[in-house]
């Protein structure tokens, strides 16, 4: 089974590599810029998917990612303006993400509430707060600037695509890779996954289910804060109502498509980002003579198709969404 999956992944990668090489030989500048833009589209989605993975791997369904992103990006923007420091804005945004997460943990772990409702509360809370306090016509003092990594950024194609970004983008990659290794190669990861699959097995082995759920949901919130900060402080530079435009929900789809694996979700996000960047390029070129709205929906249509094809075969963490009661089997 797993060897089949690996082989299929290999073929996908090969197909993408060959077509990329072809396009690169056709027009190196355009291809490089499309891929570079694709990475900037993909990173926030990948980080948002990490929030979902962190939560669901320990058995907490988080549909409040959208709310976490919305509120933390909002807080990042206005606190950066108020303190005139994007670093402080970034830190406060992370704290906001953790706050939202602790709220989710309180509702779903301590109060054993329905987790879909708990997530919905986060979304409504974020929409309400940000709409109410929104002030028009404010400007960020500065943004996280592009800082090419010396050496690595000189590699043809890859240097331009991966190593000419800002601090938060690099941090994002570090977080995703760390999460991958932590989840599959450390005690913490083994315990987290056990809690998400069979909490009473973890409990009887002396692992505290609720502590680990709180911890992981809190870390997820910090990642959500990073994601919100990236969007507003590095990628866009301004904030308006409904700023995150459903990225938190798209991320849930990418999480499923990536089989709750950080690298899988990253790949899924890259695929999504690439189809979005590609669609934009098609519009600019005027290659396709159809209304731009239809080109705009291309990434979403592809997500639906991809999910519809893959959804039947994936298996979510078994204890997902169920509050844990001690002494039950």
């Amino acid at each position: 089974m797993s060897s089949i999956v690996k082989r299929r992944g290999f073929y996908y990668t090969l197909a993408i590599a060959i077509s990329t090489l072809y396009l690169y030989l056709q027009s190196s500048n355009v291809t490089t810029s499309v891929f570079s833009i694709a990475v900037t589209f993909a990173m926030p989605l990948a980080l948002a998917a990490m929030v979902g993975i962190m939560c669901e791997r320990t058995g907490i369904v988080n549909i409040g990612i959208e709310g976490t992103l919305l509120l933390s990006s909002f807080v990042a923007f206005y606190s950066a303006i108020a303190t005139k420091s994007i670093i402080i804005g970034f830190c406060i945004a992370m704290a906001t993400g953790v706050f939202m997460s602790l709220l989710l943990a309180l509702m779903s772990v301590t109060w054993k509430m329905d987790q879909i409702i708990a997530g919905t509360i986060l979304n409504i809370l974020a929409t309400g707060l940000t709409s109410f306090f929104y002030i028009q016509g404010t400007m960020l003092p500065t943004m996280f600037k592009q800082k090419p990594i010396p050496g690595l950024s000189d590699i043809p194609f890859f240097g331009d695509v991966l190593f000419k970004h800002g601090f938060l983008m690099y941090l994002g990659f570090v977080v995703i890779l760390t999460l991958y290794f932590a989840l599959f190669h450390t005690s913490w990861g083994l315990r987290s996954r056990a809690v998400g699959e069979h909490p009473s097995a973890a409990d009887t082995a002396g692992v505290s289910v609720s502590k680990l759920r709180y911890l992981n949901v809190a870390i997820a919130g910090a990642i959500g804060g990073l994601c919100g900060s990236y969007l507003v402080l590095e990628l866009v530079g301004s904030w308006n109502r409904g700023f995150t435009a459903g990225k938190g929900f798209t991320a849930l789809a990418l999480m499923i498509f990536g089989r709750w694996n950080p690298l899988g979700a990253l790949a899924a996000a890259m695929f999504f980002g690439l189809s979005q960047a590609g669609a934009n390029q098609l519009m600019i070129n005027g290659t396709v003579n159809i209304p731009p709205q239809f080109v705009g929906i291309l990434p979403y249509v592809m997500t639906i198709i991809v999910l519809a094809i893959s959804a039947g075969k994936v298996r979510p963490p078994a204890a997902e969404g169920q509050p844990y009661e001690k002494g039950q089997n």
Partner: protein
Amino acid sequence: MSALLEVTGVTKRYPGVVANDNISLTVNAGEVVALLGENGAGKSTLLKAVFGLVKPDSGEIKIGGTPIVFGDTAGVIARGVGMVHQHFQLVPVMTVTENIILGDEPKRGLFINKKAAHDEILALSKRYGLEVDPDAVIEDLPVGMQQRVEILKALRKDVKLLILDEPTAVLTPQEIDELLEVIRNLAKSGVGVVLITHKLHEVMAVADRVVVLRGGKLVGTTSPKESDEAGLAQMMVGRSVVLQVNRTEAKRGGVVLEVKGLQVLDDRKLLMVKGVDLSLYSGEILGVAGVEGNGQRELVEAICGMRNREAGEVLLKGEPTKNLNPHAVHEAGISHVPEDREKHGLISSYSIADNLILNQFDQSPFSKGWIRDLSAIATNAVDTVAKFDIRTPSAFNTASSLSGGNKQKVVVARELSEELPVLIAAQPTRGVDVGSIEFIHNQLIAARDKGAAVMLVSAELDEILSLSDRIAVMSGGKIVAVLDSKDADRNYIGRLMAGLKE
């Protein structure tokens, strides 16, 4: 030296049931203590309390002389207590190694040392002669092998006290022998072992001391030397509730239900019922005895329309009932007390009143046209709750608020309310408290006396023996014998159940 485990006056109440009533016991190093009792006698609750998984209402539990703290499972484990749970505590999607090291992983820097873990599991399995593949994924393993992983998991932590909660329920006879050997060796090496079971021959084979629980109370302590299987059974069943059924001679009528050459597949699509012929007569109870998993469930479900029939037919008063749905089967005149009351017997989130009319919700007087008659439903509920002694503050509480025994009374009350010609009762007293068992038994007898044809399927041989007029023994998907209960001999039926011929 203080005892390994010292339980003093532990009491634990659940709504409607006292699971543990003032229980005290001690376990010393190097001894095997069997904790014996029927289902629902409170064995599992007591052991969960020892592990800090259940908080006793009163009493004290000491391990190695120091009291335990509720919730501190890690502390209990650290003091050398290992448990093999009745329900496997294994993560199905993980490997054997991952499951065994969970909670105490060998590390190299920040990462898990997978090589060391792998080697450790190999060494462990060699040391105790319990062979496992460290890299196999749990869900791919047969249950016996999963059990082995559970035992290794417990043994890994240098246990001083090993608790085995019904470890042999899923094992083959050979695997049971191996396990008993392992238990003996462990005791020899100075480990205290608590074996929870209701299989008497296992107790006789390994135990040094036997502690018997009944209805949450400790009723006696003995040893295999001082007692025999019959004596232990006597202690376990106590005042033999099942034997006190007042049963008059059956007034057997004509054939009501006839099963002919029935073949049924199980959930895995394997042939489970391999050609069963049965006749149910009005005014008599037919007991179907057998070790669980020999096709009884599939047989009942096929008769009641919950499972398709591969071949054969079921005739009700001479009329074929070909693959009808459960509702139509009920309309035709068969009432059914399902084996799994939580899943098939009740809708937990509905009120008791609604649960009492689930089979007649669309019929008069509970429904007028498309409209439910709430006052008729309420009247029926209040009457039934009183008549069946269902212990609840109100008939309008949800069914989930009831204890197991009272839930079962709701199901039995509903199925008996119409006095249909056939009653199929599958495991009607499983997990039910003693008082309710007696009540349910009397209701079954009453239904019989009113002329119903009753089929009683039970894994408890005593229940079958005390209630049935005729006994059909099921083994390997077939009815291997049908006996008159007057001629029934316990040992003989036991051999038939085990699939042995004469």
